[in-house]
């Protein structure tokens, strides 16, 4: 049983780490603000969920697991809110999203 939990949490942590890294790469490399935001929110949501779940499996049924759950809930509530406020104020300030058009891509 302990082995199963170890393997499961190992998988969760590794996949979470991969998500975080890919999201970070995207936040650096993608061409404009809104696409970068998409990548960053990937690290915030998927990355946090998987990593915190992975640690939670390791923590077992304890106060630590409850705290991790609190952190997770907190991140899941605040992350999208912050993203919303950010995108909203960026849009209001006149930063327009660029649409993908085939004629753009041919250049």
């Amino acid at each position: 049983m302990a082995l199963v939990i170890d393997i499961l949490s190992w998988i969760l942590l590794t996949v979470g780490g991969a998500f975080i890294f890919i999201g970070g790469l995207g936040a650096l490399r993608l061409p404009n603000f809104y696409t970068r935001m998409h990548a960053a929110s990937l690290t915030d949501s998927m990355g946090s969920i998987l990593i915190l779940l992975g640690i939670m499996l390791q923590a077992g049924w304890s106060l630590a697991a409850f705290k991790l759950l609190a952190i997770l809930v907190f991140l899941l509530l605040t992350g999208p809110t912050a993203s919303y406020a950010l995108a909203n104020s960026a849009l209001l300030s006149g930063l327009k999203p660029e649409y993908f058009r085939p004629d753009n891509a041919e250049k």
Partner: protein
Amino acid sequence: MYYVVSFAILVTMALALIRAVVGPSVYDRVLAVNMFGTKTTLLLSVVAFLYGRPDFLDLALTYAMINFIGVLAVLEFFQSRSIRRENKQTD
């Protein structure tokens, strides 16, 4: 396996830092700061387990809270400033 995750988080923190330094727009920087904050939260949770002191998760929770408040404060400042600027132009 904690090391693998911590390493990924550390690299991502570095990437976010680069994004915060190069910009170009202010919103990119706010985004990077927000990302940096959540990554610090995750790093602290992982390191707390690496150290075998899970009672230090309080810190990670504090980081998450403070980060949220910081980002909202920046945006609020930003909007009120751009409004003030618009106002000056219309005067």
